């Protein structure tokens, strides 16, 4: 009998706030902080709308209690803040002797420093200490060292589904008995590298993004980090940690259609949701809420919407994209939205798909336009789809129900 996987800790930093409570407060107050770029020196500064973590790197260093002697990318700093919050939430500092893994998703890595110093790297020795902060493993190892984790660590990069796959892989390692618990999620700071990359693909909206709206015109990029602590049922008996919810489904599929576009019928999205649902042993009508990938691009929302209609042939659950709140946190989106989904599950709240006005003519359903309170939510689904058709879905279940 494979072990059950419980969520016992959450950590979250985004444009909405610097910890889980601040994020929750902003969500409940329907506040979004999407606006011009403040922290990055880019000529696109006033042309793009983004969601940035309010703190500067110096302030993040101070809050994490770090010394400026070591080289930290913003990516690592965000990761440290969120992973530490989750780690302390689950009191992993008190529970010694557990075989704890760290699985982190990131894609742009420490490119925020590398892009500043690239010419120095090539021509002189002044910025050598930043050379090794640019790869994806750097932030993961900085997090592990900060938390004193010595067990299994690795880094996953499947673009915008990285954090979802980090959570999924962590749960598989635990079910196979290779880990007692894990800190899993993702981190991504904004960089000129991917602001310009997404801009070149012409999929960024200068206005606040409008997922599932007929007038949608692209993405607002966001930054931040989010981590969950997962424990096996056996580990949870030892830690006695309150169970926030159970991870009951994980699906990973590859659309294998196009490097950056989704198929019009959403074949990959359908497969990922179907696999997660099959693993959970639940029927489609048992799902109460879908936190959609919902980027606000023409392509994603149509293909995801069609996939939802194909899978949920009876009643379509409440659907919303929370990217109008957080911006698209790319590699961290999967864990950030998992946490937003879990907060909704705990509080009985369906999060609104902000900025939605005009229904898409191609779809039969509409996303939740307003915040809905007092809903009895048992099962939530969170979708994360990445470039290259790397589509993943997670399903969380309220604890203590059958």
């Amino acid at each position, binding site marked *: 009998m494979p072990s059950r996987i419980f969520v016992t800790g959450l950590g979250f930093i985004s444009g909405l706030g610097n910890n889980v409570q601040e994020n929750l407060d902003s969500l409940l107050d329907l506040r979004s902080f999407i606006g011009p770029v403040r922290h990055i020196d880019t000529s696109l500064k006033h042309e793009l709308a983004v969601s940035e973590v309010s703190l500067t790197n110096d302030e993040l260093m101070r809050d994490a209690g770090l010394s400026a002697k070591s080289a930290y990318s913003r990516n690592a700093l965000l990761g440290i803040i969120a992973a530490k919050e989750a780690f302390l939430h689950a009191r992993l500092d008190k529970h010694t002797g557990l075989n704890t893994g760290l699985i982190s998703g990131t*894609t742009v890595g420490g490119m925020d420093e590398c892009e500043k110093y690239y010419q120095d790297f*090539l021509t002189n020795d002044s910025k050598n200490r930043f050379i090794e902060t640019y790869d*994806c493993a750097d932030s993961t190892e900085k997090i592990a060292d900060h938390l004193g984790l010595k067990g299994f660590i690795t880094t996953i990069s499947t673009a915008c589904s990285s954090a979802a796959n980090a959570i999924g*892989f962590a749960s598989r390692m635990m079910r196979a008995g290779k880990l007692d618990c894990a800190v899993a999620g993702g981190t991504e700071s904004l960089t000129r590298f991917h602001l310009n990359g997404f801009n070149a693909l012409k999929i960024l909206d200068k206005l606040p993004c409008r997922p599932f709206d007929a007038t949608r015109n692209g993405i607002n990029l966001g930054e931040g980090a989010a981590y969950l602590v997962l424990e096996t049922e056996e580990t949870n008996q030892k830690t006695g940690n309150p169970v926030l919810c159970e991870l009951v489904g994980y699906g990973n599929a590859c659309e294998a259609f196009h490097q950056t576009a989704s198929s019009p019928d959403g074949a990959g999205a359908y497969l990922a949701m179907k696999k997660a649902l099959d693993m959970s042993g639940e029927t489609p009508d048992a799902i109460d809420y879908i936190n959609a990938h919902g980027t606000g691009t023409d392509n994603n929302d149509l293909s995801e919407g069609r996939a939802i209609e194909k899978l949920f042939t009876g009643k379509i659950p409440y659907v919303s994209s929370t990217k109008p709140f957080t911006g698209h946190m790319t590699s961290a989106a999967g864990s950030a939205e998992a946490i937003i989904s879990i907060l909704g599950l705990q509080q009985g709240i369906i999060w609104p798909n902000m900025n939605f006005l005009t229904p898409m003519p191609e779809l039969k359903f509409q996303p939740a336009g307003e915040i809905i309170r007092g809903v009895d939510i048992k099962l939530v689904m969170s979708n994360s789809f990445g470039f290259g058709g*790397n589509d993943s879905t997670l399903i969380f279940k309220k604890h203590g129900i059958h």
Partner: protein
Amino acid sequence: MAYINGIGIISPQNTLPGSDFLEPVVEHTSEFMKSLEPVYKLYIDPMASRRLSRLIKMGISSAKMCMQDAGLEVPDAIITGTGLGSVEDTEKILGELTIEEKFLNPTPFIQSTYNTISSQIAINLKCHEYNSTYVHRCFSLESGLIDALLQIEEGSALNVLTGGIDEMTLNHLTIIRRLGLWKLEPVRNLDLWSSALPGALAGEGAAYFNISKERNEKTYARLEAVETLYKPASTGQTAEAVLRFVSEHGLRPEDVDLVMMGNNGYDEHDRICNEVMMQALPSASRMLYKHLCGEYHTVSGFALFVAATILRKQFIPSSLLTIPIPPGKLETILIHNHFRNTDHSFILVRR
């Protein structure tokens, strides 16, 4: 535990389909050891190929070689490990950003995204199943192998295509040479172990493996287990980890016939490799191989190809420095590698 039933490898040596096992040995005298690339049109539609960067082409081609070697069409999962992804594309973007923003070409951005390799392989093989990419220095390939073994154990897959791939460029070499770990001038690869110039020689390569639940007539070897060790406190602790790993798989230290050593020519790095194996497996034969392929994050892919092929052929090419040549049948090979004494990995391969 699973079986290696197919291999596709592009490396600085003669490893393309149809070549003899590492024969004849290839000398390299330039700044880094560059892969001997295949005729790409054998594996990729030439129209599509023109838009793809070198790393992506190496990835798709080696993956297809692997599937052909295994005699299979579509795998049940595709997993890639890469330390740095497409360095060439990343550099293009960083170069453009230095000059002027806004007019970036989107193609290098897309290809610089690490998961492009796995997803391009999926597009080429029409595989809609599990697809993932690990990007953790010297744990990248190893994490992919661990995931592949899990897929088999879970029953989610009968055969998994997994591999490791990294490329080197002159710009990147210029940058990493500042860290003091690399030779500052070109040295003939076959002189790596006698050169007075300190540091490792850089290399590159792509190696994909078909990891299958069942043994068949294509089987090279059994992939017994893969383990990683992060930041050991001492070489003693690393040696203990080796012994525990070996014994967890029912083996005594003397059952390991051969260790493929992580040595790369950088003294401090090599000292750790030597001390760990001296303490853990003093009676095993040792093999040095990085003079053939150079050092890179996913170099264990080259080592796994060598180990699996040796076990199948029961033959060790003379270009692999082996002391002493193991007498009798070769049953068990251990591959050890590490990055800065921080990321250690162990791969156990059996006949």
